[in-house]
């Protein structure tokens, strides 16, 4: 690694375009044995999880909401992590920095897993009673809550896959043109007639940015609806308007954490050390810190308003969600999602490292899991959702073996899908990297050498 003026210089932009292409294609050709091992383990986990869903909640039917708690936790967790990761890519694209180029693909990859939350969503939809006669954001629209939430969810998943496809289309075409004959099959079909004409590039760039923006809007909308339909309306008396925002913002935090972890794994085992380096981790760490603070801000505003209000309705909610029934999940999530990121990432030296942000990202993912457990356990246990406020606080729901298997299985399924996606989608992102290399020139400036970064309007 080159060192100039006592500072480590990042390798990311030292490649030539040819190296990037060769690197990307190499990953498509060769996969290690550990790759196969992890893939098989996660597939087995997924199968076990699916079986657990069938013998557990599915057999007990849709009448008993509480047995479905961990299906919902798995769903919420995947939505908070996998589905929010592509939003990170969109946000960084919008900010137009060049550091983002190697990161985008990392977060977009997770769009490949969206099918699992979609299936879980349809299972959970069976638990929804009609929205008539109970608090709901639908106000008795025909077909609510089932149709409208499904429309949003399906649109989200379709947009996610389209986003992933469009943003990797040029790379697929590269693979089609440059891979050996035996490996081309998939790529030929996927690449269509992409030949990189001027018109195609313009369409692609627009498509990626519009699809991305649309994905974020849909994601925020879907999370709002999920938070309202599956959490708020199942807890009597809970009309916390900030909750959907809190739910979404904490998911963004988890999405950033997932991106960091994936990047770290790709660095360590995926041979991407030359692309994902301190710059990327530094800025992602900053983002993670910012969202950790936002997590605190959003939970604090909910808490302080209830605390100050002191009405019996709010006291019951505080006891249920914060202080008594689900105190430990809340406390753990609070420490892992806010306190740890703040105390660890506030130091620039920690942020400017690979380990620092990665460790915090792992903590945040664990914290997010506890948040989901707290929320869905609390919302799936009240028996009478039609009363105006919570009169008796239901006891805490503790998971059994089947619940944990469901959770592990669905996460395993998501990992398997990402690993499978890596067979089609190249890492490093070839076209993004090359565009970044083109817009970067070294010049002499007085006594030193500087980098000039092009910023096209």
């Amino acid at each position, binding site marked *: 690694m080159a060192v100039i003026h006592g500072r480590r210089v990042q390798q990311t932009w030292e490649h030539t375009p040819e190296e990037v292409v060769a690197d990307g294609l190499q990953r498509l050709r060769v996969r290690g044995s550990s790759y196969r091992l992890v893939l098989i383990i996660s597939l087995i986990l997924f199968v076990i999880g699916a079986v657990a869903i069938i013998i557990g909640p599915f057999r007990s039917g849709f009448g008993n909401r509480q047995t479905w708690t961990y299906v919902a936790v798995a769903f919420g967790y995947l939505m908070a992590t996998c589905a929010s990761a592509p939003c990170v890519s969109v946000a960084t694209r919008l900010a137009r920095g060049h550091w983002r180029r190697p990161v985008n693909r990392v977060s977009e990859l997770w769009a490949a897993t969206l099918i699992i939350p979609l299936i879980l969503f349809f299972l959970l939809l069976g638990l929804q009673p009609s929205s008539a006669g109970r608090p709901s954001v639908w106000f008795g629209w025909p077909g609510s809550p089932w149709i409208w939430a499904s429309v949003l969810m399906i649109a989200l998943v379709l947009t996610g896959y389209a986003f992933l496809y469009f943003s990797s289309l040029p790379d697929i075409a590269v693979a089609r043109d440059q891979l050996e004959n035996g490996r081309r099959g998939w790529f030929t079909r996927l690449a269509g007639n992409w030949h990189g004409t001027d018109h195609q590039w313009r369409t692609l760039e627009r498509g990626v940015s519009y699809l991305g923006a649309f994905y974020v809007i849909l994601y925020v909308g879907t999370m709002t609806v999920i938070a309202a339909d599956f959490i708020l309306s199942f807890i009597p008396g809970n009309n916390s308007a900030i909750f959907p925002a809190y739910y979404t913002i904490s998911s963004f935090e988890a999405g950033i954490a997932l991106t960091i972890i994936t990047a770290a794994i790709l660095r360590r085992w995926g041979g991407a050390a030359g692309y994902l380096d301190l710059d990327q981790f530094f800025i992602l760490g900053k983002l993670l810190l910012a969202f950790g603070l936002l997590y605190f801000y959003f939970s604090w505003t909910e808490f302080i308003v209830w605390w*100050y209000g*002191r*009405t*019996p*309705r709010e*006291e019951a909610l505080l006891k249920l969600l914060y202080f008594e029934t689900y105190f430990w999940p809340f406390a753990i999530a609070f420490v892992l999602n806010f306190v740890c990121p703040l105390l660890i990432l506030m130091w620039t030296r920690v942020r400017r490292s690979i380990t620092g942000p990665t460790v915090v990202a792992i903590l945040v993912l664990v914290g997010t899991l506890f948040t989901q457990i707290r929320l869905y356990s609390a919302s799936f246990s009240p028996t009478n959702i039609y009363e105006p*406020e919570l009169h008796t606080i239901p006891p805490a729901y503790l998971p059994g073996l089947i619940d944990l298997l469901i959770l592990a299985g669905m996460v395993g399924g998501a990992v398997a899908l990402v690993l499978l996606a890596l067979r089609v989608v190249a890492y490093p992102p070839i076209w993004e990297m090359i565009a970044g290399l083109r817009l970067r020139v070294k010049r002499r400036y007085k006594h030193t050498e500087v980098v000039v970064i092009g910023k096209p309007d």
Partner: protein
Amino acid sequence: MSAPVPRWGMVIDLDRCTGCQACVVACQAENNVPINTEEIFHQNRAIEWIRVERYWEGEFPNVKARYIPVPCMQCANAPCEPVCPVYATMHTTEGINMQVYNRCIGTRYCSVNCHWHVRFFNFWEPKWPDSLKNQLNPDVTVRSRGIMEKCTFCIQRINQAERTARVEGNRPLLDGEVNTACAQACPSRALLFGNLNDPASKVAQKVNTTDRGYTLLAELGTKPAVLYLKKVEVVEKA
């Protein structure tokens, strides 16, 4: 021997209330409340420490008038108290939600956070006609403009009685020794005032025995010290 600290409370029997407004007038006279002229009333700035709200029920010709006298609820968990920046409103040990006129700077936050609308702001300097100036109660401060005021459960009378009791060998207060002006003036005895902590008092007995009791805006959980007894409906036999 010193008596247990009283907790002052009131029971308002709506079955007895005729809506005659005697309580309002009595309060006005006792507590130096400024005169509510027609103009001030139309500005919606009238000050009535106890007011009688009148609602119509039913369609003509079967219209019924409903009256409900509303003094300050003297909430045990008063929402008006924590929001005052200068501690001008605070809780006494006897459960009265008091207003310290000298501290008040008139942010009116307490009024915003009072859901019974029983906190009043002095929009103008109060004026009395010359003929009424000698009528002012010397035991009660005349409030200047720019500050809040509210029902005190006639705290000057409570203090007077407690002082007397202390002088007479620190004896406990007797039930009925203190009465508010409104309860005293009520011709139908709809208002009943007394010490809720004294199980022998009339008001405590009423509170403990009645099955008609309810508090206003109970869903806010502020624990009001005023209990309403709902009206007994006359059911005509067919």
